[in-house]
């Protein structure tokens, strides 16, 4: 096993180091990018190729209880999308929710080497880590759901803010999570209560609590900020999917009051119009706000036509969709922590709302003045599979192609957007920002998303082609932590990938508050709850920045 490699003659796109298509050598040793390697080191001649850091997916759903439910839920999407075993590389099945091995291999095939599972109730952390361990090649972590946590909300309504923050830190440690996720803050209580209802305003009272969604949002932004977590509060806003919801999104962003916050799959939260009527685009309103407020970042959550799976902690939303589509549906409540809804979904070009969603996502990309803060995602598999990323990249880079596609979809929807007026075409440099450098920076992963000395040697090499979809569809070489995983389009041996997590300090005294709560309201013992280190086979703790 050679531990060093030189990549020469490739056109390098490394935005963190401001390298824009320069032909230069990239040297790798012991899993890291180094300044130089000895002359006799093996070489990849990347002449005619594009060299980028490995892709980083800031928001996807790839592991854990809800993902596994969605996986075994849809045998119909798997039989015709199989992934055969290649020597010792495990077989699997695809569809919009692939099996774990296939998920890892397919991400790598696209040139992605890091992927973050975006929604895990802490009680599901052990399961999630088990699945992530079986998701090869990519480095991974997950975000833990804390915005509908009954124990935290009880502390919050009593104004016990210090204990609230300590409890957040405890939960991060107990679950081995990377970031704090908010999904439809406060919406679980009305959902699990009698009427299967939801909160519809971030300032309205949550049933059962003397709290509003805004108070929860603010408290979790405070806590993540005070704890110095590398990634800020990661927020799925209230009112996802509803016409007129952009106002809720703006209010949520204003709640940050200048502190960093990440709004996820913002496309689903950028709708104008009146509730219960057809939506229109509010991409301009959302873009303007983000362009002017550099504490805000977002990933788009682009909708791509074809098969998708809705899976979200926002259970009332899936119930609404289920009653529209009449399709099979899963609801899965987690005690004291979370809700969850799943249904198969198909985005269709001729349907007004779907075409509008598609166009709004593209508007958000094309109106973003700062691509570092508006990064690429499809909220896999909610807006479509991550396997759509190459096509999405082409839509961003190729205006002619984009307009051809726009001509094939519902024209009433396109007319309600500004898409056809947008002439912008993303450059390879900007693609490298939205798919690698930007997400890595937003995540606070200093060793990822770039090719500077000391970075993780996660490198992707693509053949340079005019058809950007074809180009990004299959990397020619993928190097993960310095090991070749794809060599001239062929899989080499498996690599495992690391679990990335945080471990903020906390005062153990908080356990005196949590333990009695567990004894009363949970069904597992407090001492059996935290995920122990034996589950982290190869982990890396990313430090916090707090004093």
């Amino acid at each position: 096993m050679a531990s060093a490699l030189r990549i020469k003659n490739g056109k390098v796109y490394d935005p963190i180091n401001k390298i824009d298509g320069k032909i230069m050598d990239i040297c790798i040793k012991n899993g890291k990018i180094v300044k130089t390697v000895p002359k006799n080191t093996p070489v990849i001649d990347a002449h005619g190729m594009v060299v980028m850091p490995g892709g980083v997916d800031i928001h996807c759903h790839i592991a854990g209880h809800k993902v596994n439910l969605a996986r075994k839920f849809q045998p119909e999407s798997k039989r015709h999308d199989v992934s055969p075993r290649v020597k010792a590389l495990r077989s699997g099945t695809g569809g919009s929710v692939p099996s774990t091995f296939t998920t890892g291999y397919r991400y790598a095939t696209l040139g992605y080497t890091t992927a973050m599972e975006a929604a895990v109730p802490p009680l599901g952390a052990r399961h999630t880590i088990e699945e992530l361990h079986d998701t090869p090649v990519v480095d991974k972590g997950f975000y833990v759901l804390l915005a509908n946590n009954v124990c935290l909300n009880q502390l919050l309504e009593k104004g016990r803010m210090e204990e609230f923050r300590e409890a957040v830190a405890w939960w991060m440690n107990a679950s081995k999570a990377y970031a704090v996720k908010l999904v439809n803050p406060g919406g679980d209580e009305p959902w699990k209560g009698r009427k299967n209802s939801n909160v519809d305003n971030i300032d309205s009272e949550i049933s059962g609590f003397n709290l509003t969604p805004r108070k929860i949002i603010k408290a979790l932004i405070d806590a993540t900020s005070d704890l110095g977590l590398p990634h800020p509060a990661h927020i799925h806003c209230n009112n996802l999917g509803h016409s007129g919801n952009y106002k809720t999104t703006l209010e949520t962003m204003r709640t940050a009051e200048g502190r960093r916050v990440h709004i996820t799959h913002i496309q689903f939260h950028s709708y104008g119009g009146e509730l219960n009527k057809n939506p229109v685009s509010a991409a301009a309103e959302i873009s303007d706000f983000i362009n002017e407020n550099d504490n805000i970042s977002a990933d788009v959550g682009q909708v791509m036509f074809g098969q998708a799976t809705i899976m979200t902690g926002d259970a009332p939303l899936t119930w609404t969709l289920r009653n529209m589509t009449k399709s099979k549906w899963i609801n899965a409540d987690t005690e004291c922590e979370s809700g969850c809804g799943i249904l198969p979904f198909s985005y269709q070009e001729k349907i007004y709302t779907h075409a509008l969603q598609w166009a709004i996502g593209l508007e958000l990309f094309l109106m973003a003045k700062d691509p570092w803060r508006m990064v690429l995602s499809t909220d896999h598999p909610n807006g479509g599979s991550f396997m759509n990323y190459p096509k999405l990249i082409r839509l961003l880079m190729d205006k002619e192609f984009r307009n051809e596609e726009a001509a094939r979809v519902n024209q009433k929807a396109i007319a309600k957007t500004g898409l056809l007026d947008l002439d912008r075409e993303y450059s390879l440099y900007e693609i490298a920002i939205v798919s690698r450098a930007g997400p890595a920076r937003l995540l606070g992963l200093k060793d990822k998303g770039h090719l500077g000395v000391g970075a993780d040697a996660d490198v992707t090499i693509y053949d340079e082609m005019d058809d950007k979809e074809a180009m990004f569809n299959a990397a020619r070489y993928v190097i993960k932590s310095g090991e070749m995983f794809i060599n001239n389009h062929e899989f080499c041996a498996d690599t495992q990938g690391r679990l990335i997590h945080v471990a903020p300090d906390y005062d153990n005294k908080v356990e005196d508050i949590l333990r009695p709560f567990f004894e009363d309201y949970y069904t597992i013992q407090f001492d059996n709850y935290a995920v122990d280190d034996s589950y982290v086979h190869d982990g890396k703790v990313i430090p916090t920045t707090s004093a």
Partner: protein
Amino acid sequence: MSEESKVIKNAVCTFCGCVCDDIELTVDPAGKHITKANNACVLGKAWFLEHKVEDYPVALIDGKEASLKDAVEAAAQIFVSAKFPAIYGLSDTTCEAQKEAVAIADYVNGNIDTTTSVCHGPTGMAFQGVGESTASLGEIKNRADFVMYWGGNPAEAHPRHFERYAVTAKGANTPNGKDDRHVAMVDIRPTPSSLIADTFLQIKPGSDFELLWAMRALVKDAALDDSVEERTGISKAVLEELVERMKNCQFGVIFFGMGLTMTRGRHFNAGALLELATDLNQYTHFVALPTRGHGNVTGADNVVSWQTGFPFGVNFNRGYPRFNPGEYTTSDILGRGEADALCVIASDPASNFSAKAIEHIKKIPVITLDPKPTVTSSLAKVAFTTATYGINVPGTVYRMDNVALSLRPAFDSPFPSDQMVLKAIKERVCELRGLNQTTKTTAA
């Protein structure tokens, strides 16, 4: 060896799918057996207290004592020589062992199936058809004010289900336990469980589907004629009252057992029940859960699902997973005489499969992994004695509601774990088949 007894707090019982994790075990000073199992139910006590490490050989080949190494070699040879090797069982072992078993099936292009295919397999199929509204058991404890059991006898099969999760359990919105709940039971005969029911519906055997469909009709305000009583044994008036109660509860749950899934109608029954729970969400919050039997059958479903995409009955003959219950389920494979080798982990198909299947088991080379001799192991070409999960072996198990827990073993066993044996077999299979698992290339 210490003179004092060792105490293990918060130990996890894997006897049934309740997976109670509040057991306090006392191990005798010699570290050979458990003397106390506080908090455990009658089944859990038997599980822990009667467990002894007995003096079996670690492995037998053709009934003769063999070393572990030779037995691993013999097992690997069986796998690589077979054209259609089948792996079965897996619901009473750790997820760590289950993963190794799926890997072997993948590497030998074999078949993998779990005991799910003979218990809640129909539930898995119904779930694929209609979905489910479900919850972790703590939601039931905290919120459920209407609890129904259908086709099961938890008082005897899951003795602590009432107390920990669903009937007398006290939670946030149910501070008075049973007084805050209405409990309904549906079964074909009275059982110790039905004694606690506020409403007991004794239905005619084999009429589950009809009764569920009638209830769905009432939930949807569809016309229902009086013939329902003749078909099911339950009058329309009783049903109407029950359905009204279900529609008007705060949080309802239906637990269902093999009395529903393994009787006439099978996955249609399970599907009708899951749909009923979904329908009721038009009125209130309603969920349904299968009461799973084996300690880690839910883990087996999860592991096989995440690794292959399908929950049980998975075949790798073409080099990728295919799923078809009836075609790739073990009892069918054996009944049709298809598999030419069988590996059984923690199960005893030779004592409970059909006569035809058992006849075929006797004709093919069989590998068994089990802590105790079984009928199947007595027929085995290679029989491993393995340590018992939860008592001697650490690892992960999933409760019936898909909550994962870590085991806290009480004392060491001289025998290897299922995982260790399966991993060794896997590695030898890979060697024999030339599947190099570790080579990494950096050169272009």
